[in-house]
């Protein structure tokens, strides 16, 4: 069906309106980074700095250990993704394929863990980690982030596994695979888009964390993650928002890069052709 001019207009207007709302904070972040301190406080605000300070990025990069913060964030996120994917893939697959006593309610119970706010878990986690002598180590973040990620990731993956026909594993088993072999050789390759989406979700969740990092790592500056590091740039008397914004741009870049890398795996439809 061809769209009329009015329909096209309405469609594009909606898309543009949505994009403006979503991208405005990003745009404002960049504008803030590029503005001089004086211009930042000018009223009415300028929508593009009169004298863009492009050297701000180099200046901030040199002044603060941003690379180290990013590296720590990366370690925590990769560790959290690895641990939570290992658990969620197994759990999601089991919930999808094996009927067990109370299986459905167990699946829902897993989700209740997700309903607890992170701040509620901070104190018990702190007490557990300190009894294991882990406070100040990046492992605290790997474990704490996994507690946030696993419940929801398990559900995402269960839903994805549910869409893969059981006959594929049965065919693999008739072809000589063990149940685990059928999962590894047939189900997981087909589930790549689901795995990629879940891994991205896990990565973003870990990357965006501040509360856990602040609680467990505040006294170990060498292990500060990017989010924690940036907040230390806030001064007691003066805050250089342009510096903070420039640092924030650096922190956003890895997420964008990872999204671009995973995007081709996120495209669904890989199972097309398995069935009729």
């Amino acid at each position, binding site marked *: 069906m061809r769209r009329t001019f009015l329909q096209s207009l309405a469609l594009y207007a909606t898309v543009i309106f949505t994009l403006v709302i979503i991208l405005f904070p990003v745009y404002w972040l960049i504008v803030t980074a590029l503005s001089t301190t004086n211009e930042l406080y000018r009223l009415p605000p300028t929508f593009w700095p009169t004298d863009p300070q492009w050297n701000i990025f180099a200046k901030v990069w040199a002044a603060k250990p941003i690379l180290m913060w990013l590296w720590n964030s990366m370690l925590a996120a990769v560790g959290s993704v690895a641990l939570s994917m290992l658990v969620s893939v197994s759990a999601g697959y089991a919930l999808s394929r094996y009927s067990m006593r109370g299986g459905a309610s167990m699946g829902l119970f897993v989700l209740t863990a997700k309903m607890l706010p992170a701040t509620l878990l901070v104190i018990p986690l702190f007490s557990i980690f300190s009894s294991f002598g882990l406070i100040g180590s990046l492992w605290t973040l790997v474990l704490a982030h996994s507690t946030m990620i696993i419940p929801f990731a398990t559900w995402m993956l269960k839903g994805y596994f549910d869409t893969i026909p059981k006959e594929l594993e049965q*065919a693999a088993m*008739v072809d000589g695979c*063990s149940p685990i072999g059928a999962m590894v050789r047939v189900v997981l390759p087909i589930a790549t888009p689901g795995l990629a989406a879940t891994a991205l979700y896990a990565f973003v969740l870990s990357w965006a964390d501040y509360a856990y990092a602040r609680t467990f790592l505040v006294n170990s500056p060498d292990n500060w993650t990017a989010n924690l590091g940036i907040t230390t740039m806030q001064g007691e008397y003066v805050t250089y928002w342009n510096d903070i914004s420039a640092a924030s741009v650096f922190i956003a870049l890895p997420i964008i890069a990872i999204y671009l890398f995973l995007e081709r795996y996120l495209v669904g439809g890989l199972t097309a*052709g398995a069935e*009729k």
Partner: protein
Amino acid sequence: MANISIRNVSKSYGALNVLRPFSLEIENGEFVVLVGPSGCGKSTMLKILAGLEPATEGQIFIGDREVTDLAPGDRDIAMVFQNYALYPHLTVRQNIGFGLKMRGTDKTEIDRRVDDAARILEVTPYLDRKPKDLSGGQRQRVALGRAIVRQPQAFLMDEPLSNLDAKLRVHMRAEIGALHKRIGVTTVYVTHDQVEAMTMADRVVIMQGGIIQQIAAPDELFNNPANLFVAGFIGSPGMNFLNADLRDGKLTAFGQEISLPRATTYQGPVVIGLRPEHLKLGEGPATFGTRPTLVESLGSEKYVYFDAEGARIADGEDGKSKGLIARVSHTGSLPRDQEIRLGFDPAQLYLFDAKTGERL
């Protein structure tokens, strides 16, 4: 190739019996079709045979080897699934060769056998494609290729044609038949389509409610159904059934008394069965008059629907009765609601016990 022996295999989920003790001896090279309505236990039996479901009780032998507790991959069988179950991330070549690879077959040997299977099934041009780039018929052939390449002891096929359109189904039915003749592997084939069962099978196993109703060659099933269910299931259009009373070798039906040519001592209520093609336009040894409620023309023949006292529908049908039906050769016009005469031979009547449904 091997014979298959199924001995008293049953399956239940708690108190629910989906398969009553099931015994069947399948000869080496035989083509056996399990047929029946949905939920009759035929697919369950096939899955138990494949090792995809455990049997609650009983034993299964393939050749002289007991396989009851073996994993599917250790039974030396191949299975074709209703939805083909091709691995979407692998090419056709990898799909066909997957089972050989899992068994550690040498790479050059895999290539040789995949090429052979592809040639037999005429899928050679598509070997480097993914399943999603194939048509339904081609996917079906690849699924068959995956089965034959392993040269297994037996083929198990679970409604392999039901996803194809009508024309392709007829074509693939003939191809599977020809393939079986060519390689002669023992085959167990599950379908709900009685036409597939009748045209492909050496022997048909008719099932209902987890119970075997009859095991026989197709013609035998048609000519000598063991009970009401089999009589109603086999044949298209289905057999007509009427409630009647049998006294001293005489029946009352179609408003008249009909003498049975065969001697029978049974007295009491019976169901009589009459195949639609055994009714003829005009006079016969027994004749009655009726008004058609509906006439469907197929060109060379017509399906004439009519009502009669005591008419009943076959078990397992959809419950919507159009009354009785006669299948007559007639090319002229046959108006509805105009009196016609239909004749039949009482020797062609089937009699069933009204209580048990067993053939008398």
